[in-house]
Every structure is written in structure tokens, then in C-alpha cells.
């Protein structure tokens, strides 16, 4: 019976995984909608949007660019910055 050598099996497994990756990326690219992107641009321009809507729990995570900088004790002299999403974003410069 014909048996594959270990190197061929390894190459086949790797090739299969890379093929899967390519089809996943291809699927995502096909889903990308240029009309959606166009509408996003119009929304940003006409509404004057300056921030992505990600964390809405605090004003300085909702509007990173237009609110005061994130700093400990910013809300009150004894109040530490405690919103969890604050740790996801880097320092706003």
C-alpha cells in the first residue's frame, strides 16, 4: 500500500491550514461593502463625528478626542479612574 512520508503529511497539513486561512480572508474581503464604507464617510462628514462608538460607559472613553484626558483623580480628588474600558485604550496625546 502506498504510504506518504512524514514530511509529505506535514506539508499537506500545513497547506490545508493555509488554504483554510486564504478562504477565510477571501470570505471577509467579499463581505466588505464599498457602499457601507461610503455611507460611513457621509455620516462622519455630515454629523461631524470625531470618535468611534466603542465604549459608551464614560465620556472620556466614548469621545476620546473631544473630552478631557484620562487621568487618575480626574473626576474628583479621591476618585481613581475605574472604568474597565479605560485600560483598553492607550494614552490620548
Amino acid at each position: 500500500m502506498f504510504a506518504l512520508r512524514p514530511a509529505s503529511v506535514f506539508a499537506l497539513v500545513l497547506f490545508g491550514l493555509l488554504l483554510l486561512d486564504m478562504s477565510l480572508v477571501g470570505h471577509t474581503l467579499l463581505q466588505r461593502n464599498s457602499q457601507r464604507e461610503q455611507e460611513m464617510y457621509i455620516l462622519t462628514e455630515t454629523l461631524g463625528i470625531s470618535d468611534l462608538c466603542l465604549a459608551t460607559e464614560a465620556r472620556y472613553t466614548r469621545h476620546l478626542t473631544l473630552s478631557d484626558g484620562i487621568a487618575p483623580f480626574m473626576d474628583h480628588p479621591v476618585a481613581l479612574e475605574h472604568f474597565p474600558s479605560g485600560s483598553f485604550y492607550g494614552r490620548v496625546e
Partner: protein
Amino acid sequence: MSLGFQKQLNILDYGLASLWRRKTKNICVIIVFSLVIFLLSSFQFLTGALTSVAEKTLRFAPEITVQRMVAGRQEQIPLAYVAKLQNIFGIRGVEPRIWGYHFSTVTGANITVLGLTSFDKRLEKSLLVGRLPRFGQAGEVVLGQGVVRDLNLQNRRKFALFRPDLSQKTFTVVAEFKPESELLTADIMLMSMADGRDFFNMSSDFATDLVVQVANPAEIENIARKIGQILADTRVVTRPQIQKTYSLVFGWRSGFGSVCLLTSLAAFIILAWDKASGMTPEEKREIGILKLLGWQTSDVLAVRFYEGFAVSVLALVLGCTLGYVHIAFFEGVLFRPLMFGWSVLTPNLQLSPEIHLTDVLLVTCFSVLPYLVATVIPAWRAASVPPDSAMR
């Protein structure tokens, strides 16, 4: 096929067969290794996709936004400031806006209320159904999908919210933003400026901020500087500043990013330390036998190199695949609790991560290279001792 290549292929075969003999242990290593790479690559794909969306979208952000600052905080800006800006050459228009937050005591959601003086006709393309609010009709609003979910309106078109003085204001939903735009509009309630002013009980002489349109984008910085000189108590935020913020804000320097990176580094250091601290007696014996059979030290090193290469490359591809699926198809579900925190209104992300060579190289440098080094060095130490002492 050349003799050298055939030899290397045979050594690779031997290495892979040797891995397969200890399959339980090696499969466990690949699983743990893949999970660490999954964490690294997921974070990289997520932040890359968010940065890319921000980069593309915020090219159209307001050219200049003027905010009044009092005691280091943003305050309402007098409409009289608009007249002071009219004389600056290069300004195409100044539009006051009213915006702010409404906290729902029932659901705990923060709704972003936005009131404008005019609505661009092009906005209609972004609406799911319905029309833009009419300025003669009080209380007409357009809602983002997050607000629609939060208010649980179902088929109702009317709802009421409390003003700051606890009196009620009734709103009529005339349209909803499309779900595809949730990354920008999920928490927005759009209305006319008069309604916004009425809802926040704001004086008619003030606005929240001023949006300045500039005729020539190359002059943004100059005009911003002039505005800063004329209106000394204001903060002037320009479009390039907004874009710069979003190019830096997602990355390894954030608290969570550092945790991801340090966790992965710690995992690799433990793995490398375990490998480098020595080989098992069985492995040393195997090397002794190979050398007795006539294998050179370089051949033994090649076997160990191929073994390490096979394990790390397989784990790299598996980890990156899982990371991609996690972000593209599951909206980064494992990161959502931290990324959104206690937010009640959250968008559906619908991200399409882009694969950059730099991302793959970064993950490779943190995973494959340390593993290869940690595999080859102890093998070189064992292979350089005489075979008889290695077997003893």
C-alpha cells in the same frame, strides 16, 4: 533531487517521526503554544482593524472643533464667539452644535444626544427606513440601533425621556440609522438643535461646541492657531489631531495590550526555560545512539531544528487562524467585556481584519524564534559530548 536536499528531507522525516512517537506531549505543547499565539494575534488583528476603520472614516472628521474650557473642563460656548471667527480668512463656515449625554436611570445606558442646525440630504442614504427630522416639527429624532435596542420600542414610534429638571419630553422616531453604521452611530439620538437645547434646558445664547469648516485643508493648522489666539479660553481640536489620536490609541501601550504582551512573554519564557534547562535522559540517550551510528553533531542539530520548526510553525498557523476567526466572525467576543467595560449600549463590530506582514512578523518573533532557540541550544550541548558518556 540533489543528495544534500534528499539528506535534509530524510532528517526532516526522522524528526517528524520522532515528534509523533511522543505525540501526547507534543500535541499538548502545540495546543498551549497555539493559545498563546491566539491571544497575541487576536489583539493584533482587533487593534489593527479598529485603527484601519478609524483611519479611513476619520479622514472626514470635522476640520476644526472649538470648545470652551473653564477650570480645565469643557463648558458651553457662547454663540457670540461665532462672530469673532467670521473675519478669519480661509474659514468656509462655522456651525454651532449641541451634544451631550443622557443617562438612562432605567437601563443604565448613556445615550449621545446630538442636535444640529441643518441636516445634509446625503444623510438619507444612511437611514434604514424613514426620513430626516423636520425643523418645524418638535421632538423628531433619528436613533442609532443601540438606542433602539435599549429603549425596546418594538412598533412604538413615540417615547419620552426626562429633562434635567425631571419634566418629560416626548420624542417621535422618524428614522433609524442602518445597522452597518453601528461603529459610528449605535448610541446616537439625532435631533434638531432646538430640540437638543430644549432637552438639555440650555440657554439660547450657548452651544456645546463650534465646528469650523476650512476652505483649504492645508491651512487647518494655521487657522487653528489663529482661533486659539483670538479665543484664548478655548481648546481647538483639529482633524489631524483626531487622526493622530486614533493611530496611537489602540496598541501595546494600553494597559490591556501590555497584559496580553507580558502574558505571552511570560508563557514563552517559562517554555523556553523548561526546554533550555536540560533534556530528558531518554533524549540524551537517543542523541548518543545517533552519534554512535555515525551522525554528525550538525545532523543532530538539524533534527532538533526541524522538530522545533514543525511544532512552532504549526502552532503559529493554528493560533493566527483562531485569532482571525475570533475577530472576523465572533466580533472579538473574548475581548468585549474589557473593551466595552460596563457600557450598556454596545455596537456590533463587524470588523474585517487586514493581515499585515508586520503583524505576522511580530507574532513570529515572539513565538517561533524563542522556541527554535530553546530547542536547538540544549540539543547542541548534548550533541557535543562524546556518545559513550551521553549514553551512560
